[in-house]
């Protein structure tokens, strides 16, 4: 399955609350593959949520392997219907998003999380994540609720121009 284009503001699907999957079927497994392929198409990308590729379904992929700010690292994982069970210790750090051109912002995020969701195999999975992996998971789950990092910045002072990434 080829990588799909990553949608950008003001695409309405990015602001919609995504629907949970009723069950893991072929369509869900195919979505998981598309999420992974789309993430792999951008070398620096560490995660993609389904709404970013135009699918208003509660699913995302994250892979923080090799990232210098990562502590916990579960490699590549896709979760459907993710839920945050526990969250500790908000810390602000600067984020950007493939769906929000030109801007970056300082966003407070929990540094430790326990998150639960369904895998593409239909199994229940509980992950304990921290540091950068926790930030990436929260950023992706926000996409499922129609929230972008600019909805989370603490003040106007916290928005900055993003440098051009090649």
């Amino acid at each position: 399955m080829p990588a799909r284009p990553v949608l950008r503001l003001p695409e309405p699907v990015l602001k919609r609350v995504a629907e949970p999957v009723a069950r893991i079927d072929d369509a869900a497994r195919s979505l998981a593959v598309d999420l992974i392929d789309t993430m792999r198409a951008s070398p620096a990308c560490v995660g993609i949520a389904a709404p970013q590729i135009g699918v208003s379904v509660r699913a995302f992929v994250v892979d923080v392997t090799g990232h210098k700010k990562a502590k916990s690292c579960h490699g590549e994982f896709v979760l459907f219907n993710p839920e945050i069970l526990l969250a500790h210790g908000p810390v602000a750090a600067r984020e950007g998003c493939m769906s929000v051109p030109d801007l970056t912002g300082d966003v407070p995020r929990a540094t430790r999380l326990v998150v639960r969701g369904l895998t593409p195999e239909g199994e229940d999975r509980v992950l304990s994540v921290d540091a950068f992996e926790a930030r990436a998971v929260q950023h992706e789950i926000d996409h499922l609720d129609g929230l972008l990092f600019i909805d989370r910045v603490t003040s106007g002072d916290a928005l900055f121009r993003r440098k051009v990434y090649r």
Partner: protein
Amino acid sequence: MAHFAVTAVGSDRPGIVAAVTKTLVDHDCNLEDTSMSILRGHFAMMLVVAGPIALDPSALEAALVQETGGFDLVVAVRQIDDAVPASPEGDAWTVAVYGADRPGIVHAITALLADIGVNVVDLTTRVIGDAERPVYAMVLEVTLPPAVSPQDVAARLDEQAAALGVECSLHPSEADIL
């Protein structure tokens, strides 16, 4: 379409933004990048707006002064270049400086940065603490050119901060694109 730099400053109270932007809308101006904040009790607006080519900056300035008269704003409008100048490329770092208030802190720090080719992209200063012992706090967002080493910049900032009797730190603020 032409571009104009608009500044307006007045004692802070509700309605200033609504009043200024009404006049701008009435003159067919579209707000592009803006920055507005309270500076020592004064609401300060800086706006870059796009407007009709035929718009006379001094006429817009006069209209803003007249139509926002109740707010007693200090207003200036100037036409600026339509082209968007490119800022130097490099990595994003943040410099924080704080210490006893004294004249010359901003100049000394920014002159040092300019000397080594570091570009300032955002700068905020505040006087905090009580009247007897005011503390000057400055946060700069800067771009380090690829050829400049952060360790070298940090060492030079430390040296300058020590001479000024202030504290200074440099830390990376490169965003992670998620």
